[in-house]
């Protein structure tokens, strides 16, 4: 729960439309800035549900109170229209408001500190010229003492941030360096995927530290280890088994041959990565693949099954006395099939799946209860969806089912209790879409 305030709430897909801005050589400074704003996913936090783009007002709950994102349109009163270029740069890189006050570090300025001057210029041009001004101030954050004392953040900044702009590591190819810049800087991937320390700081802001991008659990959802293991396939799970093309497909379309996006990452794909150019996505993938990975410190072993055993049992429909397996046949097999592998690009594989095998089953249980929907993307326009099963499964049944999936086909996710399911169920929004049969007769 404590990490909640780092996370944007899910913003509706396609707030600004979906056309990617081409990275043409002739594009204007403001157009280049628009593209960079996509890479930085500014819109996700700085837009309220149904609100005007960049007008702020998104409420980000935290244990200390509600942080409300600000209006960053060029309106001089309500927004940042009277910011000079240097004031704008200070906000991005150092988390300093024009009046000198500190921004709450929900703003990923520790990552944006990596931005080059050129890119700051482009972003400034975009936010001043390319964004529609909105003369409506976002509500103030409601943060209680002592967290409302913004000066305290200075100390935090001094301890955990680093104002140096990005510099490539020696020997990095141009592509990997570009990828590193995007991942560490605008992409601020570490905000979710790097473990946090006791003061909620990211343990590393770049790959100079082995902890960088090794995964973190946020509100019960596992944000996986993104380190690709130097490109070697050493039999682990997750990104190190994905090719660079798999990573690109995932970021561009929310789906690939192995998996499909769920949870907060759905918004990241919809608002940010699907808008990025192919070259940049390949650069990010190349960088992630290049990161060395410890000899699978996070890989658990000791699964009681093999893929073949589970597939054989489900294919024979031999589930007498195995309630989890029976529930799988009655609810999941239609799309994910007896081999658990679903279908490439359409239905995610459950075998070795990060969400399925996470230490905390919250994400898996959430998807079982509430379903999930992929964003419609230019490359893959179909907003494929999994229906919700919360109306059909009791807490006990959902726990049996989730535990089965976490232990089948060589998976090693561990047990799930009905109480855990009940917790997840309680937190589901009431107005979510449901496919429960609704009979008029």
């Amino acid at each position: 729960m404590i990490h909640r305030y780092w996370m944007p709430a899910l913003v509706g897909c396609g707030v600004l439309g979906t056309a990617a801005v081409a990275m043409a050589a002739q594009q204007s400074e403001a157009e280049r800035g628009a593209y960079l704003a996509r890479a930085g996913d500014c819109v996700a936090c700085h837009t309220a549900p149904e609100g005007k783009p960049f007008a702020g007002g998104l409420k980000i709950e935290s244990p200390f109170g509600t942080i409300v994102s600000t209006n960053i349109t060029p309106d001089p009163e309500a927004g940042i229209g009277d910011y000079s270029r240097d004031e704008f740069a200070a906000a991005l890189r150092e988390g300093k408001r024009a009046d000198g006050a500190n921004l709450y570090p929900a703003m990923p300025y520790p990552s944006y500190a990596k931005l080059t001057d050129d890119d700051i210029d482009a972003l400034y041009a975009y936010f001043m010229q390319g964004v529609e001004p909105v003369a409506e101030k976002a509500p103030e954050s409601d943060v209680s003492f002592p967290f409302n004392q913004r000066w305290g953040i200075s100390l935090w900044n001094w301890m955990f941030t680093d104002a140096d702009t990005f510099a490539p590591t020696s020997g990095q190819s141009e592509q990997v360096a570009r990828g590193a810049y995007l991942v560490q800087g605008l992409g601020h991937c570490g905000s979710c995927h790097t473990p946090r320390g006791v003061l909620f700081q990211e343990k590393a802001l770049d790959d100079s530290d082995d902890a960088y991008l090794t995964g973190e659990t946020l509100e019960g959802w596992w944000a996986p280890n993104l380190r690709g293991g130097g490109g070697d396939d050493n039999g682990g799970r997750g990104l190190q088994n994905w090719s660079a093309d798999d990573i690109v497909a995932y970021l561009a379309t929310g789906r690939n041959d192995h998996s499909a996006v769920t949870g907060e990452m759905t918004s990241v794909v919809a608002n940010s990565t699907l808008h990025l150019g192919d070259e940049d996505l390949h650069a990010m993938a190349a960088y992630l693949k290049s990161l060395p990975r410890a000899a699978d410190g996070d890989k658990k072993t000791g699964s009681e099954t093999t893929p073949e055993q589970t597939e054989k049992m489900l294919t024979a429909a031999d589930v007498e006395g195995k309630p989890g397996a029976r529930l799988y046949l009655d609810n999941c097999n239609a799309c994910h099939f007896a081999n658990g592998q679903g279908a490439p690009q359409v239905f995610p594989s459950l075998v070795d799946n990060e969400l399925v095998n996470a230490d905390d089953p919250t994400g898996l249980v959430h998807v079982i209860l509430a379903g999930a929907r992929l964003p419609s993307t230019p490359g893959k326009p179909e907003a494929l969806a999994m229906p919700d099963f919360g109306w059909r499964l009791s807490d006990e049944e959902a726990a049996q089912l989730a535990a089965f999936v976490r232990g089948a086909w060589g998976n090693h996710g561990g047990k799930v209790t009905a109480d855990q399911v009940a917790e997840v169920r309680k937190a589901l929004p009431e107005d979510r879409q449901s496919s429960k049969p609704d009979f008029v007769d």
Partner: protein
Amino acid sequence: MSSELKNASRRGFIKGSLMMIPAVTVGGGVSLTAAAAEPPANLDDYQPTFFDADEWRFILAACDRLIPSDGEGPGALETNVPIFIDQQMEGKFGHAADWYMKGPFHPGVSPLFGYQSPLAPREVYRKGIAATGRYCQDNHGKGFAALDVDTQTQILTQLEKGEIEFDDVSSGQFFAFLLQNTKEGYFADPIHGGNKHMASWKFIGFPGARASYLEWVEQHNKAYPLGPVSLTGERG
């Protein structure tokens, strides 16, 4: 016209001039926290909402003749078929809500032209049960439900063949609805009130709402082994 179209066509679209209807709708009034099924009603305790006590006795007796409990497999009464029929009377079917029910009516045309009566099915039931009751009183001295099984069977057969004629309703149509709805209640998902505990599905080997058989397509000539599942997740 021609140049107008050409110019208009090539001017591109005006952003925002067209309002998109969202691709998805959120269903209203759906309980999102209730899991699984409510247990099916007990036929003996059930209070019909459409049928009165006399009519209900007819429905129970007639259903018991159409799908009796004799022999293998459940009958209409064990599977709550009468409850299904009672609920159908109150729904769209009973009211003919989806049907074209404007006049003029020509009930005398050939049956090839389908339903041509001004009566909604619930009215056919009401009139049909009453007329059958009068026929039984007049010819056998008792109501239908009080007759012996063979006589009941004989009367239903006469209705089916149109051998008994009523003044205000087609006996054949009345029987056709009764038989159709009885089979529906027997085989439909339990969510509709009949097919209690999926007993008819277990009887014939239909897996119900499982709808997932990729691995079984090529397992030829081998009876599918797993019991049914219902819409609400009841397992049998």
